[in-house]
């Protein structure tokens, strides 16, 4: 709850930075109009204009305003991430269809998957409805599948720039995401195992320890907040489950989630 409070409270200062920048921009446009209307400056004013480098200044100001807004947008994204994270507190345990959750997430990602990545599903049909936090759990699938797609994209980019095809003709088997679910019953307890495997670029060894750390990201500035996997970790823990991964560079990555079910 504390994080939620902080996240929301940040919106106030973010609001006046953003709004302040918007109003500065309008005020500046007005001033600029005035300056242009004045035209030729009287000698005294000309001297000051040279001293402050007015021509340059007139270009710098609007750029600075845009820079401030970029900072604001990025901050807002982080706050949104934290907010989603803490929304878990507000959601309720419900009976939900695990496979339906995965399928609807895939549907949302279909524009990113297109034809270039093959999705292979191996669902254990014995798994029906499970007691879980459906919204947050779907967020975990969304994050993991999104990362899988990005990892494959990274590999595709690497291959095309290296001019390699690894001798595999069919990109459908080369670029693949497998989703496997399995019911595991032993000694009176039942667990659901969900394995998401990609044939992407893999995770370099030196960053594996940091993968679940908040704000750790390998993505381009502005492309990821670095909150995705730490949020996943939190959500799975909240379910009393576990999340782990194995990865080989250039071969791919496999995330395994286990959730206890009643």
């Amino acid at each position, binding site marked *: 709850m504390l994080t939620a409070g902080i996240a*929301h409270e*940040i*919106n106030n200062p*973010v609001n006046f930075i953003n*709004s302040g920048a*918007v109003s500065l921009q309008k005020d500046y446009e007005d001033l600029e109009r005035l300056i242009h209307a004045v035209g030729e400056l009287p000698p005294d004013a000309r001297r000051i204009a040279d001293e402050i480098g007015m021509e340059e200044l007139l270009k710098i100001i609007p750029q600075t305003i845009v820079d401030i807004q970029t900072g604001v947008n990025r901050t807002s994204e982080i706050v949104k991430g934290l907010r989603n994270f803490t929304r878990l507190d507000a959601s309720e345990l419900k009976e939900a269809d695990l496979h339906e959750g995965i399928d609807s997430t895939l549907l949302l990602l279909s524009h990113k998957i297109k034809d270039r990545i093959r999705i292979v599903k191996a669902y254990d049909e014995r798994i029906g409805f499970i007691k879980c936090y459906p919204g947050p759990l779907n967020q975990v699938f969304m994050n993991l599948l999104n990362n899988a797609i990005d990892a494959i994209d990274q590999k595709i980019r690497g291959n095309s720039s290296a001019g390699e095809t690894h001798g595999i003709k069919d990109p459908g088997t080369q670029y693949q995401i497998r989703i496997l679910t399995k019911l595991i019953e032993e000694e009176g307890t039942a667990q659901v195992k969900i394995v998401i495997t990609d044939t992407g670029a893999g995770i370099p060894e030196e960053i594996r320890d940091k993968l679940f750390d908040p704000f750790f990201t390998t993505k381009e500035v502005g492309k990821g907040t670095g909150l995705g996997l730490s949020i996943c970790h939190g959500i799975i823990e909240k379910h009393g489950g576990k999340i782990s991964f194995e990865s080989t560079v250039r071969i791919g990555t496999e995330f395994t989630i286990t959730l206890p079910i009643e």
Partner: protein
Amino acid sequence: MEKLTVLYIDDEEINLRVFKSTFRRDFFVLIACSAKEGLAILKKEPVDILITDQRMPEMTGVGLLKEVADIYPDVPPVRMIISGYTADKDIEEAYKNYKLYSFVSKPWDESYLKGIILEASNMLNKRYE
């Protein structure tokens, strides 16, 4: 056309200032730093649109709307709440019972907020007076 009069209430003074400097070209902006001060302005000046922050000491935005709905039962629901927090049960209550027109999240988007204000003003046939 005459400019709309918008009253904005927020306990954060900087929010008041940036609201005014952002929208002064479009609207006649009145500001107040508490629900109590806002109510005093409503009683004195003609106001078209009322916008309030939700979380404020003493009286919340929803609390304020409740009072306003009691005092001005005939004025259409041209009232907005802006909050850094997500909408909760209180906000739902305000929609249902206290004539809340719209809930907007901070940081507000200038053109979106302006659009909502203009949209709300369409329902206006009576001012707070």
